[in-house]
């Protein structure tokens, strides 16, 4: 029979493992999202490369190759599940003679850092980059063309215009979608258990089998994911408000209290 007391018991008894899993998942998703975003920016610009008639032959060829790579990259990485990508990455690197188990980190915190963690980090980053490329591209398209003209007419170069005027606006416009990607990453990093990355799902699965308490373990898992995503979306809302120049209040009920006072 299902026993509510058991949930608390399992949580307390295995709290070390669970905290290690939470740390792994959080680092994976945060790192994957941020580095993926940076790679995605390059990808978006790569996809937007324009081949001009006036370019010399070699530049034309290089541009075509680069553009083709960027387009192909996002098609392949978005068109296949991350689980499959992780497996191909694992066995591909194994075939090349790289064994992730052998890699060890000099310092060990919470049992997070090991070779498989590094492999998972690479997979999630490159997977996210493909989505981020698309997100940043739509953000760039959403910026008014007049902004470019305004900057260029003051004598700013193309790179300066992109860096100081266009990209900040594109990122700001795309921020809700980028935040969404972070939340998706928190949940989707669970598929990395297939290559033995000891993240949250992997930990709880093991706890479930060793304690023979499946339902309890998975309820704990669901609750932890829920809390993580709620925290993430809350922080993102604050960042959005901050970027809009609004005053931020850390009290989530502040708004309602103020409303009541006015009545």
């Amino acid at each position, binding site marked *: 029979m299902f026993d509510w007391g058991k949930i608390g018991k399992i949580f307390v008894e295995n709290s070390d493992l669970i905290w290690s899993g939470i740390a792994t998942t959080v680092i994976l998703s945060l790192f994957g999202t941020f580095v993926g975003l940076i790679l995605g920016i390059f990808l978006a610009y790569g996809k937007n490369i324009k081949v001009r008639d006036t370019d010399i032959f070699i530049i034309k060829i290089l541009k075509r190759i680069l553009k083709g790579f960027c387009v192909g990259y996002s098609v392949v990485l978005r068109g296949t599940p991350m689980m499959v990508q992780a497996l191909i990455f694992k066995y591909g690197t194994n075939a090349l003679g790289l064994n992730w188990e052998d890699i060890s980190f000099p310092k060990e915190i919470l049992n997070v850092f090991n070779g498989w963690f590094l492999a998972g980090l690479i997979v999630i980053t490159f997977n996210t980059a493909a989505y981020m490329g698309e997100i940043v591209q739509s953000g760039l398209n959403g910026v008014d063309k*007049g902004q470019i003209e305004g*900057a*260029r007419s003051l004598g700013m170069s*193309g790179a300066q215009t992109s860096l100081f005027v266009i990209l900040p606006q594109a990122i700001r416009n795309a921020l809700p979608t980028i935040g969404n990607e972070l939340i998706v990453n928190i949940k989707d990093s669970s598929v990395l258990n297939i290559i033995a990355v000891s993240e949250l799902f992997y930990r709880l699965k093991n706890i479930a089998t060793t304690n023979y308490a499946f339902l309890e373990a998975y309820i704990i898992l669901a609750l932890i994911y829920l809390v993580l995503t709620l925290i993430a979306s809350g922080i993102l809302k604050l960042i959005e408000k901050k970027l809009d120049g609004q005053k931020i209040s850390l009290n989530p009920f502040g708004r309602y209290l103020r409303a009541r006072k006015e009545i």
Partner: protein
Amino acid sequence: MSETILEIKNLAKFFGKTKVLRDISLNVEKGDVIAIIGPSGSGKSTFLRCLNLLEEPTRGELIFKGETYFHIIKCKNDFVDYEAYHKALDAYEEELVRTEDNLAIYQNLKIEGKVDDSLNKKIAKAKKEFKEVRKHPVQKIDFFDSKSYEEAIKNTPKFSISNKEINKIRSKINMVFQSFNLFENKRVIDNCCLAPVKVLKMSNAEAKEIAIKELTAVNMQDRMNYYPRELSGGQKQRVAIARALCMNPEVILFDEPTSALDPEMVDEVLNVMKKLASEGRTMIVVTHEMNFAKNVANKVIFMDKGYVVESGNPKDIFENPKTDRLKQFLKMN
């Protein structure tokens, strides 16, 4: 004696076969306030955008303070026999329609059920004819006189300018837009500081000092820490003018600066522009504000369909228009 700042020789711009600007020449001297008036679609804005190369002219010569920054004498379009080209194009389209009709007639007969051997042959023949016509579309390049083009190119030295030099020119010929184009992600003060710091390599403190001075000049000093979206249209345009002034440009181009504003705001922007004119700034203003052209400008240019129809001092233009087109235009206003 005033010096010539900007010299424009035979500037032309074609978008495909539409000729937006046709051989416009103009001398801009230091302290000139030139108003360009004319109906919509007459190429005024395009002319202005060509001056700082936001739009690349098709041909012509642009000289800034004795330094040529754009020079193409002959363009490919000059060597296309347009008359013959359009004639051939019309003939081709006619032929296309005729053969397609022919085919349709026979096919309709077939659908109606009147099938015999000769009809099938006729369909095959009509199909072949139609395909044959479609295979050889009229192309512009067939009417392009490449021999004389290459000869003309050979005789003129090739002119090219690097992006860096274009940016340098643009930093001296600034533009104020109809739609303001303030950087939405930056506060008013940062809008003004950005280009001086990045382009003129000023220090932050220096740029800020100049920005505050120019913002005070347009009476926007108390809105320095606002975002553009928090300002009204007139305020935005005044900030845009201050942003241009921070670069200390030699020429300021105004592209219909008051067209997106309501009447009250128009005045506040025009007053700023009047002040600039009285300070001796060189300005080229595309405008629909006839009073501004009449009272502030020292030269008025009336453009229509890509031509300069009439130009001269405002008194002559507004009181004794010579051409019928200008008379008609002024009556409407």
